[in-house]
């Protein structure tokens, strides 16, 4: 008998003979945690704290700011200058003026630099702090795609390049724990401790996850954008921190959005 078979046999014996009560207890705990989050979600249905961020973001979008004293209302998020509705559902995408595929965060920064005269450093300062301007702006932009299906363009060669790279990055293992995104996110119905993990190889799971970003995170008392989520995943993998707005993070988003294509956005979401 191989070790693998022994292991399987052991699991079978366990399930049949001794683990019924354990499984029941674990299920109870999960149900309890899931129940609490469901209740919390219901409670906040008419008042997700992310809506404060949305309002702040909308005000920032319209306010004349920066050295040039311009608003962001002429910013082109991919659907034409000033068009916010539906833009998030089609990001990241290629922008001819910067020659890059950009996500919502990096596109907003380009606009803050080009229209308002901020330096890139000023535009990204403290982006990860709860309540940051960028967090608010992304929340506002994403909310204007609520109810619309995710559909990122992949026809431009640069978009196709990042889509392929994103898929490779998802499986790229390194570091002292040998982790990649796929370690936690390539099987159905898996958990870390009691935290459910979406399987991004399964389109239904990918859709269900991607439509909920950006999300108010109860444990963080803050809205996390997709960049924030991914950069923290990389931290948890014990890798160094990737640069905010780097191509690697954008490529992962192109791939993830593509996996979640067709999902109707519910932004902003609310999570543990």
């Amino acid at each position, binding site marked *: 008998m191989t*070790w*693998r078979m*022994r*292991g399987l046999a*052991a*699991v079978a*014996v*366990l399930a049949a003979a*001794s*683990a019924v*009560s*354990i499984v029941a*207890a*674990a299920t*109870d*705990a999960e149900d309890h945690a899931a129940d609490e989050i469901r209740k919390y979600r219901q409670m906040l249905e008419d008042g997700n704290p992310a809506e404060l961020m949305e309002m702040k973001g909308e005000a920032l979008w319209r306010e004349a700011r920066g050295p040039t004293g311009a608003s962001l209302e002429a910013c082109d998020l991919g659907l034409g200058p000033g068009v916010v509705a539906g833009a998030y559902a089609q990001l990241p995408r290629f922008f001819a003026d910067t020659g890059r595929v950009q996500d919502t965060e990096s596109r907003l920064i380009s606009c803050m630099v080009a229209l308002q005269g901020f330096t890139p450093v000023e535009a990204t300062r403290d982006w*990860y702090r709860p309540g940051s301007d960028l967090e608010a702006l992304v929340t506002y932009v994403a909310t204007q795609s609520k109810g619309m299906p995710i559909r990122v363009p992949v026809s431009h060669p640069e978009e196709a*390049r990042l889509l*392929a*790279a994103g898929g*490779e*990055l998802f*499986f*790229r*293992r*390194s*570091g*002292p*724990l*040998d*982790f*990649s995104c*796929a*370690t*936690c996110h*390539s*099987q159905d*119905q*898996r*958990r*870390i*401790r*009691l*935290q459910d*993990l979406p399987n991004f190889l399964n389109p239904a799971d990918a859709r269900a996850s991607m439509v909920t970003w950006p999300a108010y995170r109860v444990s963080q008392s803050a809205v996390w954008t997709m960049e924030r989520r991914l*950069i*923290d995943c990389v*931290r*948890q993998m*014990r*890798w*160094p*921190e*990737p*640069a905010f707005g*780097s*191509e*690697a*993070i954008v*490529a992962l988003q192109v791939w993830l959005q593509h996996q979640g294509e067709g999902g109707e956005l519910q932004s902003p979401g609310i999570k543990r």
Partner: protein
Amino acid sequence: MSVRRRLFGLVAVAMLASSSMAGASDSVTDAIVREAFATATPEEWRDRLAQDDAQALCSRHRNLPPPEVAAQILESQRATLRLPDDGRLMGDWRAGEKLASIGTGGHIGRIQPDPPGRAKGGNCYACHVMAPGEVAAGNIGPSLTGYGRLRGNTPEMQRYTYEKIHNAQAFFPCSHMPRFGHNGWLTPKEIADLVAFLLDPASSVNAGR
């Protein structure tokens, strides 16, 4: 930073550009990774971003290596197996129980690094059901409840368990499980404590129904 250290760093980056990363996958993705982590130190590049052969092969084959690649990984990883110098494979199960719950340590970066010297553990509970009393257990790996009760704790079983924690890929190529000993995440003593947590008849993992 001494000149010698700087030179070493440069050598590490050069090595990375030429050998390790060339062995990974295609150069497009490698270039993207280099750009994203441009501010990582040479040490971080060497230890956390460059891929060894097993990591590169598992990435390229998306953790499903064809038989000949699986055999190659198995052979190279078996060659890394080391038993502790003092020969002690079973340590203190209570110390192992603590290590199984510790999920902190080793985080780096600017936003939320761990304080220096923060305890690292095996964080086994993130992925495995173990002692029946701990219900907040993950399921990326198989349940290990009753591991020793079901298998006994013969010297052979102790050795297998130790080696499995030391380098899971010496048994299952491209396993999701970290190579705790091989990568230096856990010390030989810590692995022996985890072996005891799994195999000691008194351990909470093996508590009766």
